[in-house]
């Protein structure tokens, strides 16, 4: 990839204030939002990827992001701003994108992460379904870096009202085969003609929609609410622990 002159050797040379992040957001919405979505979560129409996860396909540093925004990515739909905006504006977009990655130091939470970890592995039995850094169950989302992707208030809602927002990956599919037997499991993937699931015994199944009697999609979560099993303080601790889970931890 070509790089903008001078940019590869430097960090952001400008002071970064809140106003710069806001300016970056407005610049992003104007220049980038058409493909990447107004909220940077990806665009349905143009297919620009989600930029809110903190993981970028073509850049691992702020300078790398600067270069991508400036020059684009050869051989892809990503075209750069070229020289149409000054360096400061490009850095503002970089800082805006960086702000979408939830930084731990920004978060002031009532709970204690260490106590939350004990609840996760003990009373809460969270580990039976969720994996962290390779340890735990696999019938729930891997939470190793959940703190980067999910704000604490969302984490709290996930714990107390799991059906509020269930990603399609965690829906349940129920397949009724021609002999009447039913196989049910988490929806790993579904397309026009087929779907694949993992059942409660962690077996993988792949079905052709045309060669089974019927199938049903259940969009509820398989996770119970913790409201009846944990105290308010325990939930606070669990939220603090989950918010602390990120790459550097």
């Amino acid at each position, binding site marked *: 990839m070509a790089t903008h002159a001078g940019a590869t050797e430097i960090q952001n040379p400008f002071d970064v204030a809140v106003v710069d992040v806001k300016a970056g957001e407005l610049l992003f919405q104007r*220049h980038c*939002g058409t493909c990447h979505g107004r909220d940077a979560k990806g665009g349905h129409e143009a297919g620009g990827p989600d930029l809110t996860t903190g993981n970028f396909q073509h850049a691992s540093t702020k300078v790398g992001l600067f270069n991508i925004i400036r020059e684009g990515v050869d051989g892809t739909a990503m075209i750069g701003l070229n020289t149409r905006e000054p360096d400061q504006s490009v850095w503002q977009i970089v800082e805006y994108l960086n702000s979408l990655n939830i930084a731990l130091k920004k978060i002031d939470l009532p709970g204690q992460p260490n106590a939350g970890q004990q609840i996760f592995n003990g009373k809460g039995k969270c580990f039976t379904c969720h994996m962290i850094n390779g340890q735990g169950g696999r019938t729930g989302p891997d939470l190793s870096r959940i703190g980067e992707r999910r704000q604490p208030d969302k984490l709290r809602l996930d714990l107390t009202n799991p059906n509020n927002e269930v990603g399609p990956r965690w829906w349940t599919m129920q397949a009724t085969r021609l002999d009447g037997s039913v196989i049910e499991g988490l929806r790993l993937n579904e*397309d026009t003609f087929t779907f694949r699931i993992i059942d409660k015994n962690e077996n993988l199944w792949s079905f052709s929609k045309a060669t089974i009697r019927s199938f049903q999609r259940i969009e509820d979560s398989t996770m119970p609410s913790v409201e009846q099993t944990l105290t308010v303080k325990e939930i606070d601790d669990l939220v603090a622990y989950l918010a602390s889970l990120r790459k550097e931890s």
Partner: protein
Amino acid sequence: MLIIRLSTIIVVLFAITYLGFGQERLSNNLQPSLSPVTWERLVNAANEPHNWLMYSGTLDSQRFSRLDQIQKRNVSDLKLQWSYQIPQIDAAETVPLVVDGVMFVTESPSNLVALDAKTGRPYWRYDHELPEDLRICCGRNNRGVAILGETLYMSTLDAHLVGIDAKTGNLLWDTEVADHKAGYSKTAAPLIVKDTVVTGIAGGEYGIRGFLDAYNAATGALEWRTHTIPGPDNPDNQTWAGDSWRTGGAPTWITGSYDPSLNLIYWGTGNPAPDWNGATRLGDNLYSDSALALDGDTGNMAWHFQFTPHDEHDWDAVQVPILADINLYGQERKVMMWANRNAFYYTLDRETGEFLVGKPFARQTWAAGLDEKGRPIRLPNTSPTPEGTLISPPVVGATNWWSAAYSPRTGLIYVNSFDGEEAVFSRDEEYEEGEFFTGGGVQSVLPSDKHFSAIRAIDPKNGERRWQFPIQPMSHAGILTTASDLVFSGSSDGYFYALDATSGESLWHIALGGPVRAAPMTYAVSGKQYVTIAAGNVVYTFGLDD
């Protein structure tokens, strides 16, 4: 019935003349490839279905082929015959042409390759040199070429039109259509009308002033230009507040159709600019989001029909107009069929622009219906706001630029449709030449898997749905239908598939991997029928084993 009988006779004659009942299969070609494509051949393109001579197959854009070697009984036996990998990574949106055994494939960003249609091996390629400061809203796409004589005509992302020698790939002429630095670009296949190359423009997200042009096919000189936003000398200019018409968009970024009997060109226009802030351009904003009928010799406007007056949701009427003669209310009518991005299906009289039929074909929450003239009865509180307004259809549309198809055998139009929703936001934005001028944006509220998508078969006589085939999660692909009552299409999950055109029953599918954003086409070489689709950045061609 007469139409069916005639078409049966023509198919039989075609089989005798062109297919040769397989005598040439597996042999080298007995005749040289590629003979000049005259205007007469283009007018009668349906009579040589072994070729695919223009973007939509025929001037009426039905995307209906008389080829029927691939049928319901054998379509499940289709096998990959060859594949061609496009060097660029973008999801290809190209529809190839085939002329007497030579296939012409456009590539991202603005390149062209000629292939042996039987083997997929290249004859030549043309790489268009592009500047580094392109202004393009939605990917580095090119959707196809046009041909007249032995010259190919291609739009380029830097808003040029080029003439390319079909036998060598040599550049014959290069005409700047508009200044790319002002936000103009070109992605659509041109349409040949007599001895001119009719071609549109993109840039609705950059506040351009749209137009449709015709260029001399031999020299590349401009013959006529019709602006899609009228100037102050036209009363329709009053449908734009103040000077907003100067930056009002209304691009023409997909290919149109032509009726030789009426000498009328039909073309769709795109969104008014800025997309999501209508407060700066009060009025109906003619002729954005409209079907235009233009004189084939002068470009003078015969009539217009605006689908979405004062659009604030980016619902371009950039769909390919489908022309057919159908019996409506006991009367033979020359009609135009149009499934619009705004979720309404329309049948119009193409001689006059009269509204005949209109009905929603997908989920919509913005209109109570259409009045007797086809004008939407808009619901309150559906405009974008700074805080966001939930609306169906979403920006991607109930359908979009991907081609629908019509079968004169079934009398049905086939449309890839989407029942989605999205939050739309407005914001204040000053026009700045060459920069995005959208006045807002969109935000998905639910994952796309939550929404429903399907190929729908619609009866143009009443807008009723005859059948639908669910797609998971959605499709950006065009559609092909054939004389053997097959419907071919693809989907974003990387499938290419065939359905029964009469029932929607699934007959065959194959996973190609890359998302399908192109439209299928079919052709025949040496007596063998092929069907071709681009998926990801690969062009795949299927046929029955010999």
